[in-house]
């Protein structure tokens, strides 16, 4: 039963990750909700403990020690307050989970660019890792598709295809490929593999017949693409969450108890992050991109004009996947961000040694510079993948005028726009734990290439998952904590979009802040850092051919937020190109100096 939000003053939230369970305490202090303490303990899903609640209890016990408030009962469960005056216990306990590899799904749709893509969007939005997308036109022959399905061991399968009232044959064919392939679930023999059908409603009888034998648990929901022009992902996403709780979580050790403890449904971690970013974008009326770079994967979330998208780049990460980043980007691309002399053969061995011993940390300045260079490429590649996925619906009929005949734009344009982006939020070890905030800001700018005015922030202790679940039950508390405690503001980047020509000016600028002011001309390939404190009034006049949001050559005057870094002026133009060789090294060294990345 939903609790009365006015009676929730103390909240314990946990995020059960693959290796660490992170707990935070949120309290109502002086009229606002604040995150007051945090603690962590190793996750205990794997043997010999095999009970996730042990790790949760350990993390909450640490929280109890730090806060002085008793939170764990004698029987090891989370203690609840008897009344609002009681000094011990909490009013609500919530949790997210990505332990045990998170939620892994296979999705299928008739047309790769249409229903299959919508199905993938639904799965990713719900917080899943999409192992493969099967489509009638994915260029694999049917027996290759069958072979692939047999190799995968998903937690569940989502099938879509056909618009309501349209053709039923293609989607039935797809089901007829999947059923005899008998994909085996990850959690072993006695588990009936859940199949969620969210396709043409007229195909339901045929689909039900196809999956009636063979040990499947079929769930039929509304079509996620009822017409070509409309995506309707809500019911499919909700069913994915339900199945995640009923089947996947129920098979993971100790989750039955965790589910019983929690006052809101346990969400997959990335699903919760997506929810909080959507809430923020909606609340502030802005466009947001969030990134979480881990050891194995990188998640990118975006909300542009209210449209939410999430991608998981499965093999772009900083430890387990570091070698793959170098392979995919190419060592040359990684090394263009390095201003020091390094031996490539030696670096290749270092990368592999990090891969096989993933917990090590850079000790030397050179190792840090190289690791941050790899992270720029991992983030850049993940963002490229995200932009290609976060598009307008494809296959939609468009009315075109004669004027449009000269435009090259097709349906399926990316929703992600560097110029429209207002806030870029970073999380994940290499970004959160960089020795200097300037380094975090620099990695973000180099990888995401924001245009115009963009605020930069980081979620230093990865609190977004907790707040995502909290937002489902107490939106105000989630928003207040997000604004006050979750985000560490780094500052603002102003980057005129346009082609920078060496030796030519890019924009004139002036800035006034409390206790100071400055003005000047930003030259091509120049970076500049202004320590502006919390806020500044700025006026920028881009040169002809450059745009900071008002249009080419149009001046913009506005207030910008500072932070622990300040205001960064980026005169390198867009798209960003870094020459190789000595010239590139000279430029990268100059940018590092301008942004005070590595002070002596």
């Amino acid at each position, binding site marked *: 039963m939903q609790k009365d939000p006015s009676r929730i003053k103390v909240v314990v939230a946990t995020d059960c990750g693959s290796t660490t369970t992170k707990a935070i305490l949120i309290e109502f202090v002086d009229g606002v909700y604040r995150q007051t303490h945090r603690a962590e303990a190793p996750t205990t899903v794997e043997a010999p403990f095999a009970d996730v609640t042990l790790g949760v209890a350990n993390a909450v016990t640490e929280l109890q020690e730090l806060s002085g408030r008793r939170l764990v009962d004698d029987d090891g469960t989370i203690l609840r307050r008897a009344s609002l005056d009681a000094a011990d216990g909490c009013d609500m306990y919530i949790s997210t989970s990505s332990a045990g590899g998170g939620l892994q799904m296979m999705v299928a749709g008739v047309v790769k660019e249409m229903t299959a893509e919508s199905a993938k969007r639904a799965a990713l939005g719900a917080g899943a890792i999409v192992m493969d997308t099967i489509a009638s036109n994915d260029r694999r022959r049917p027996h290759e598709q069958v072979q692939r399905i047999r190799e995968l061991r998903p937690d569940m399968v989502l099938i879509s295809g056909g618009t309501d009232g349209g053709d039923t*044959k293609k989607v039935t064919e797809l089901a*007829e490929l999947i059923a005899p*392939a008998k994909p085996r679930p990850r959690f072993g*023999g006695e588990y009936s593999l859940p199949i969620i059908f969210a396709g043409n409603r007229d195909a339901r009888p045929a689909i039900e017949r196809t999956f009636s034998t063979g040990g499947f648990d079929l769930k039929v929901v509304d079509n996620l693409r009822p017409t070509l022009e409309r995506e309707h992902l809500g019911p499919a996403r909700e069913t994915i969450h339900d199945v995640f709780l009923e089947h996947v979580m129920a098979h993971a050790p100790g989750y039955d108890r965790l589910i019983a403890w929690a006052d809101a449904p346990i969400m997959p971690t990335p699903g919760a992050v997506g929810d909080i970013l959507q809430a923020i974008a909606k609340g502030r009326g802005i466009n947001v991109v969030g990134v979480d770079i881990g050891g194995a994967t990188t998640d990118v979330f975006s909300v542009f004009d209210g449209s939410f998208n999430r991608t998981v780049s499965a093999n772009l990460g900083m430890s387990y996947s570091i070698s793959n980043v170098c392979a995919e980007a190419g060592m040359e691309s990684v090394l263009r961000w390095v201003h020091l002399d390094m031996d490539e053969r030696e670096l290749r061995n270092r990368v592999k*040694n990090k891969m096989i011993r993933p917990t090590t940390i850079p000790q030397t300045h050179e190792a840090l510079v190289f690791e941050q260079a790899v992270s720029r490429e991992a983030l850049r590649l993940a963002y490229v993948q995200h932009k290609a996925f976060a598009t307008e619906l494809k296959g939609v009929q468009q009315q075109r005028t004669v004027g449009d005949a000269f435009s090259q734009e097709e349906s399926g344009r990316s929703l992600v726009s560097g110029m429209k982006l207002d806030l870029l939020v970073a999380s994940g070890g290499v970004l959160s734990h960089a020795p200097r905030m300037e380094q975090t800001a620099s990695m973000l700018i180099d990888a995401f290439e924001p245009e115009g005015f963009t605020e930069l922030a980081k979620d230093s202790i990865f609190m977004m998952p907790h707040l995502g679940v909290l937002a489902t039950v107490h939106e105000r508390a989630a928003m207040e904590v997000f604004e006050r405690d979750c985000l560490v503001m780094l500052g603002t980047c102003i980057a005129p979009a346009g082609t920078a020509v060496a030796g030519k000016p890019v924009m004139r600028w002036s800035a006034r802040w409390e206790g100071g002011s400055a003005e000047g001309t930003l030259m091509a390939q120049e970076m500049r850092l202004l320590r502006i404190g919390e806020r500044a009034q700025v006026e920028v006049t881009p040169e002809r051919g450059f745009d900071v949001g008002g249009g080419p050559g149009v001046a913009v005057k506005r207030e910008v937020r500072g932070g622990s870094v300040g205001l960064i002026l980026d005169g390198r133009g867009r798209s960003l190109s870094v020459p190789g060789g000595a010239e590139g090294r000279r430029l990268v060294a100059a940018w590092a100096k301008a942004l005070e990345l590595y002070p002596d």
Partner: protein
Amino acid sequence: MAKAYTPGLTVSSRVRYRARRLLPLTGRITVKLGDRVKATDVVAQTDLEGDITPMKMSNLLSCAPRDVPGLLLKPVGSAIAKDEAIAQSKGIFGMMKVTVKATASGTIESASDSTGMVMIRGAAQPVQVRAFTSGRVVEVLGSEGAVVENDVALVQGIFGIGGEAYGPIAIACARPEERLEASSIRSEHAGCILVGGARMTIDAIRRAIELGVAAIVSGGIDDADLKALLGHDLGVAITGSEKVGITLVVTEGFGDITMAARTHALLASHAGHAASVNGATQIRAGVMRPEIVIPLADEASGDAHVGGGATAGELTIGTPVRVIRDPWFGALGTVAALPEPPAVLGSGSKARVLEVALADGQRVTVPRANVELIAG
């Protein structure tokens, strides 16, 4: 007490080893509790369902899907051979009939009247699981597999490629710091598990493949050589299915790196003994490291050991450790001091550190995350 990460790599002259041998799905167990088995004996087998080959029969016959079941020349459930006629159209007044031949051999599994698709299920594929180590069957796991136990000498590597291999141990490098070159590999090494010293060169690996060496175990490998061997850059450390004609196990890491003297001495002491090797490595949750298993002749008791797995061990003054990150990557030493407060590293990060007295007499400060315990 301070803890240090160790990938749980065991180097032990005697350990009670349990090989948990599982089928990918349920099947038949060919051994009984208490049976004595050899490493290459089959302990369980099953048949994987054959591949499915779909045929879009309504398109091939140019007919409506609902007509397909009636146009099959053999009923569903019948055996069919590749190129055998499987269906025929009615034609026009009995003329101009179209005959479709099966594109695969197997059994006709289904014929859909809503899509016109016919599925042919290929012959079942037998899968056998061997004992991997000689020993005694101590547990039968229902119809999924069996556990074979023995006292063995065990060496876990840090990284490997290729699957299970068997053969006698042969020593190619007399000293652990000796690089494994092609010239060290001779024709009598065919079928052997060859022990090198420091880095194995690409020429040595190619020579070993040419001569039919079963596996190589050495201290290091150059990433450029691994890439040349695989034909691609290895992106993530999930290996075991490579088909390069040999199994490789690296005990220390990438680059020019000497095999730990203790590891080399242990392997050398078993020259000529039968051993089993698995190069499969998985560095993710549920970590799996490559192994060299040498069953011991006598069955005295040892400490129980099942598989690898990351563990945390206690760090105290005098604990032997290996530095696992540059600038002292691969250096061996002992813990000399464990300062409590975090220190600022050369990178600018703050981290908890320790002081290591290196074997060459140097005393260096490294982050605690960058050492591993080397006691086996």
